[in-house]
């Protein structure tokens, strides 16, 4: 299948590259070449079974990013670092402003514009940027290549060895009505502990923009990193995130993925457990209403022995929406003595909604403990009955049950960081859906 207009993409890529160091400009060119050469992903693969990749192909070059963020979120506006160790605000993929709590600035952790860092901190950035493209079979690499060629900007987060950040790094990212490509890099060096919260929203509820973004996450030896993604885009937005992670010896990566918005979302998250003892915990909550099409794919690769993973994705579908979860779990011959568990639960709230699940296991060795489970059902009548006998209205009882269904993931969002905001959004949506 051909790729629609390539020439504007070429010139855009060249224009972007003009301000970049040579190595980055070369990487952009290579990305563009791979994007142009490769065909669209095969729909015979489960990864693309439920979403036509053609819908994600941009028809034009990225639009010029807005330079104003709009109203800042309240905890940014007051300018204190009570609840965050650093703030960053980004618009259409470009970092507009970033600030680190001055009291802990001496720890040396960085929250910066990625392209600036590529020039000024080459030793930190170059070995890691694009390094994860081919992990996990390069799944979905094509759109990753596009973002490599075109990205206008992004955030670089670097937590030095042994540093513990007691409060999260909070990034607010807002996109408008155009096509934006962004790329971020999160590096947790050995033995550090940190949390990063990325809050993605639309500038206006009616914005029909498209965001291609790639986020690369490196978890060093013994490091513990938690990354929380909260996506509450407008109903007409298209979002194609690729999140690639690699975890080294005894490192732990916790991800919490919350998807509440967007008209069309095709999310790909891969984790390579690259060294013994590495662990990944992945929680996901998806609430689909209206006519949303939310498609989440995860790929966990136990590339080293004695690695472990636990994945729990939960979706509630209402209205005429559709949620798809396709999860792949691989234990190659090199992954002996690994343990891997995957579960996907779907709550169907409307007759017109739809939930699809394909949890795949590929196990190439015998000394493992591995399982997966999927369940799809409406709200349990007995639970509903029980709540109503305690005096709750049917609508409140439903709300309570759905919020309870999501609570295990909501609990993992750091206190004061959006969890209440997410609950509020859910309650509002549930009020409208019931």
């Amino acid at each position, binding site marked *: 299948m051909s790729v629609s207009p390539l020439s504007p993409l070429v010139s855009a890529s060249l224009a972007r590259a003009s301000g970049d160091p040579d190595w980055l400009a070369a990487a952009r060119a290579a990305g563009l070449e791979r994007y142009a050469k490769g065909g669209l992903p*095969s729909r*015979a*693969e*489960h990864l693309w*079974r439920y979403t036509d990749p053609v819908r994600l192909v941009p028809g034009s070059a990225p639009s010029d990013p807005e330079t104003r963020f709009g109203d800042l979120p309240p905890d940014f506006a007051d300018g204190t670092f009570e609840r965050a160790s650093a703030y960053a605000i980004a618009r259409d993929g470009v970092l507009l402003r970033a600030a680190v709590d001055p009291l802990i600035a001496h720890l040396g952790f960085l929250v910066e514009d990625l392209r600036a860092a590529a020039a000024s901190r080459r030793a930190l950035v170059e070995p890691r940027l694009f390094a994860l493209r081919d992990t996990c079979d390069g799944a979905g690499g094509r759109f990753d290549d596009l973002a490599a060629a075109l990205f206008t900007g992004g955030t670089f987060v670097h937590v030095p060895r042994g540093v513990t950040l007691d409060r999260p790094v909070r990034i607010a990212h807002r996109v408008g009505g155009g096509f934006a490509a962004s790329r971020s890099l999160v590096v947790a060096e050995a033995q550090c502990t940190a949390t990063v919260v990325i809050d993605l929203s639309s500038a206006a509820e009616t914005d029909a923009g498209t965001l291609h973004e790639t986020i690369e996450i490196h978890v060093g030896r013994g490091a513990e990193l938690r990354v929380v993604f909260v996506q509450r885009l407008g109903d007409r937005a298209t979002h194609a995130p690729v999140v690639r992670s690699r975890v080294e010896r005894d490192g732990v990566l916790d991800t919490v993925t919350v998807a509440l918005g967007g008209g069309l979302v095709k999310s790909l998250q891969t984790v390579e457990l690259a060294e013994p003892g590495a662990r990944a915990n992945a929680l996901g909550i998806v609430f689909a209403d209206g006519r949303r099409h939310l498609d989440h794919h995860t790929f966990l690769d136990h590339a080293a022995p004695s690695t472990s993973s636990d994945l729990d994705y939960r979706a509630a579908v209402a209205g005429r929406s559709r949620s798809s979860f396709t999860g792949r779990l691989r234990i190659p*011959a090199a992954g*002996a003595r690994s343990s891997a568990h995957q579960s996907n639960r*779907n709550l*169907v*709230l*409307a*007759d*017109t*909604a*739809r*939930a*699809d*699940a*394909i*949890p*795949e*296991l*590929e*196990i*190439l*060795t*015998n*000394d*493992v*403990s*591995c*399982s*997966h*489970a*999927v*369940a*799809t*059902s*409406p709200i349990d009548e007995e639970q509903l009955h029980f709540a109503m006998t305690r005096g709750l209205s049917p609508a409140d009882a439903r709300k309570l049950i759905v919020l309870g269904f999501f609570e295990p993931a909501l609990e993992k969002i750091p206190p004061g960081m959006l969890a209440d905001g997410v609950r509020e959004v859910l309650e509002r949506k549930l009020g409208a859906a019931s």
Partner: protein
Amino acid sequence: MTPDNGPTPAETAAAERTASEARDIGGDYDRKYGFHDDESAYDFKSKKGLDHAIVEMISRYKKEPEWMRERRHAALDVFLAKPMPRWGNSKLLDDIDFANIHYYVRASERQGKTWEEVPEQVKKTFDRLGIPEAERKFLAGVTAQYESEVVYHSIREDLDKLGVVFTDMDTGLREHEEIVRRHWGTVIPSEDNKFSALNTAVWSGGSFVYVPKGVKVEIPLQAYFRINTENMGQFERTLIIADEGSQVHYIEGCTAPTYSSDSLHSAVVELIAMPGSKIRYTTIQNWSKNVYNLVTKRAVAHAGARVEWIDGNLGSKLTMKYPAVYLVGERAHAEILSVAFSGKDQHQDAGSKVVHVAPNTTSVVTSKSISKDGGRGTYRGLVKVHKGAKGAKVNVKCDALILDAASRSDTYPTMEVDEKKVAVEHEATVSKVGDEQLFFLMSRGLTEEEATLLIVNGFIEPFTKELPMEYAVELNRLIQLEMEGSVG
């Protein structure tokens, strides 16, 4: 070592006897099953390769009605137009050389009516497969497919009296053309996939079963299929219709001689369960390990009907088989129980499909897979609940046992739920033989090999207990044979 607790000479002798018997099960495979007939005795054998001329010849040779001849030709066009599937084991699929296959071989001109009339050479084959014994065991009827055509079948008189039709597909087409024409290809159209198109174009043999309203066939109907000529494809076509309120159990089992070059088996099996009826279809395939077994099996279950697929996969190089049930009538029920054993150089890509179309339909899928010596076992399944199938309940459970580090197990389940008031559950586990289980059994005096065999047999117990006695015994012996030398 405690000499005073050692085995007595009698015990040692008994153990040796058992061991030599166990060895015999595999040791005489060539002698028992791997024989070749003198092919020059065959009456008719098409040239290799596939084109409209071959299809025309098959149809004319069989003196088929016009509509069947047209369907064959149309299906051939579909087969030629459809690309090879790009999913599954593409590498093995791409190795199939369709030009190097005999599409039709006929062993003898005439069908034997009684055992005595069956040609001596054919008889010898069946003797080795134990068919006459099976008959002695009060089996309902024997339709044995020798090469591409049924040469012998007998139906017990009481079945005749009940009006049950149990015959080969070619005879079915001749004698019951109206029924066949109404139902044939309605469950699996030739356009369904490349291999159903191939089968429709060149089908030969298979069984035709019709059970009239309210008739309950108490004893299982059995058929044996054999591949004999090298490079010969078998394309049998089976159609089973259970009319309202009837019941039938059909058993298909396979053994095949060992040949060096590849052979293709691509059957189409259609089951139609009318309201309130029950069909159970039991298969154990043990094709030799150079056979491609690419089969389309599908059932339609009407209101209150029950369809059960009991599916065992031991042989073949590559099996791709996903028995399906379309639950189109209210309260229809599907049960799919399968076991797959993948040994060296084998890929068992098996699974199930249940499609819930009507309200209050239910299905239970249980899959057990064992991989050993680098074998690959794949469960590939689909659960689809259409809008309107309110109250549907689905339970899928897949367990895989991997016996060594070189082997592989995959689980690819797909669940599409388009309706709110349903309960869909899927669970899968992958594990090795548990150290604690082994320890427990070995502390009771079993050797590691015996303990492993016991655990494996226990693992597939839900399957074996659904089989008729003689099949359960045969399966356990086959598993024992496959397991030999698994510890060391």
